[in-house]
């Protein structure tokens, strides 16, 4: 396998982008990534997109984006893995380069979720769960994570205050991110007093509905210096895993086994352990998700994720900074783009370009992106060369 580096990144401000179409927000991010990489062409591209069909009535996203990026006739593939689509797109690009099949590959993600009303968006998101055996019986996406939260509380004594601490920390980081949808701080009291969505998750325990895109350019490490004057960042570990789609099928619904498996694959490939990670972006679609993920990644002991979240150890100046970008919670969660944007935040951190969010001496970074209630998971480990 060839070594693979990220040489270009592109992202714009996320939020309610009424004045732009799906193709425009993707092409803007892709052009930025191509310019950042300093390449004059790309050989292939992958576009993460969860549900263009339900959100904007558009499928066939690969060809559409290649068309409007002006790169036809290169191969362009749309990748769907629910909310993990953007992370899986990066993995596909990695594989294509590592295999020797292509040299310069663009991986990105895009979702435009605000063209439909909240009810329709809820239905579209719920297609990531088991339609016949979960959604049909009345459970919503926040409902699935709320059931994880209740079980975690019962088993380990996790509290609503600990959940709220995740939102507080991520909004504090998001305030420092110029691309964040909600760049403001919240307090524990504000989280606990916000509208209850699905007990025990309040509105401010949930990530928002967002329009946004993100893109990265990858190439073989050995030719990276030909294109960019910037610090190339090597992808040293990649892992992807699956689990039972329906939450109720899993022996322990409060343990994200696919995340653990994906992380272990990535750790093994990179020859790293959780202690080696300097900065990490995780999939905090709900506050409880970040708590379960830091356990599955090995940053916290099983059952101790809530205590760790509330201890300050995952803050920017903590022992393992988590979601310096503001996470899905404050940066926003355009489902198909999220996984790619996580890679962008880590590249910025490793390049030393993260501004006020910069983690000192960050040399090894990690991303964790998941789909549904954790049935798909993908992790990347990135390092300064």
């Amino acid at each position, binding site marked *: 396998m060839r070594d693979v580096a990220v040489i270009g990144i592109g992202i714009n401000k996320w939020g309610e982008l009424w004045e732009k179409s799906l193709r425009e927000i993707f092409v803007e991010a892709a052009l930025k990534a191509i310019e950042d990489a300093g390449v004059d062409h790309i050989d292939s591209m992958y576009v993460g997109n969860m549900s263009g069909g339900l959100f904007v009535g558009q499928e066939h996203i690969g060809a559409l984006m290649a068309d409007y990026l002006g790169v036809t006739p290169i191969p362009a593939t749309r990748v769907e893995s629910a909310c993990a689509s953007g992370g899986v797109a990066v993995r596909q690009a990695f594989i294509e380069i590592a295999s020797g099949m292509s040299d310069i590959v663009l991986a990105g993600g895009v979702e435009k979720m605000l063209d439909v009303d909240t009810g329709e968006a809820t*239905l579209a998101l719920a297609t990531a769960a088991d339609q016949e055996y979960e959604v*049909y019986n009345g459970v919503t996406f*926040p409902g699935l994570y709320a059931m994880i939260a209740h079980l975690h509380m019962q088993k380990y004594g996790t509290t609503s205050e600990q959940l709220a601490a995740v939102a507080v920390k991520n909004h504090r980081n998001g305030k420092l991110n110029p691309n964040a949808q909600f760049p403001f701080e919240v307090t524990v009291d504000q989280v606990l007093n916000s509208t209850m969505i*699905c*007990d025990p*998750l309040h509105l401010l325990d949930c990530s928002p509905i967002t329009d946004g895109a993100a893109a990265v350019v990858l190439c073989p490490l050995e030719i990276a210096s030909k294109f960019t004057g910037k610090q190339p960042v090597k992808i040293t570990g990649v892992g992807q895993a699956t689990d039972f789609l329906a*939450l109720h099928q899993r022996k322990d619904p409060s343990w994200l086994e696919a995340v653990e498996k994906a992380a272990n694959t990535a750790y093994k490939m990179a020859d790293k352990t959780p202690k080696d990670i300097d900065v990490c972006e995780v999939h905090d679609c709900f506050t409880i998700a970040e708590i379960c993920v830091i356990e599955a990644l090995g940053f916290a002991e099983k059952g101790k994720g809530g205590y760790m979240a509330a201890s300050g150890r995952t803050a920017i100046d903590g022992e393992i900074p988590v979601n310096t970008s503001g996470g899905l919670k404050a940066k926003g969660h355009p489902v198909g783009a999220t996984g790619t944007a996580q890679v962008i935040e880590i590249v910025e951190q490793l390049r030393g370009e993260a501004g006020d969010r910069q983690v000192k001496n960050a040399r090894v970074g990690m991303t964790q992106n998941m789909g549904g209630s954790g049935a798909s998971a993908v992790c990347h480990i990135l390092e300064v060369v």
Partner: protein
Amino acid sequence: MTTPARYWREIPQRYRYEGVKCKKSGQIFFPPRLICPEHKSDDFEKINLETQGKIVTYTVVRVAPPQFRDLVPYAVAIVELNDGARITAMIADCEPEEVKIDMPVRIEFRKIHQEGEAGIICYGYKCVPA
């Protein structure tokens, strides 16, 4: 948006509550699977599932999709039946606040939702306090 539920009414396990037992591992699956994820065996026997069980975890849904908006707040739970099979189901016939982890429940055949005033009625299972 209408659900594809109108087609699913033809699927036997939805109304008959049929599962399968892997003859090799003894594990029970609902809905039926064509291959056992543990032993990769395709040798199953059809069984009727237990109707008694208890709540593994739950939530109270307060913001619901359109077809359930009239029901909020309502409780939904993961229920483990006495034979080990697990399902997700609404908890009916009690106040959502009464629902607790480990609460004994049983399955009943109920109306799940209706596609508008004169639309098709979708049936299925809900759980009630046992």
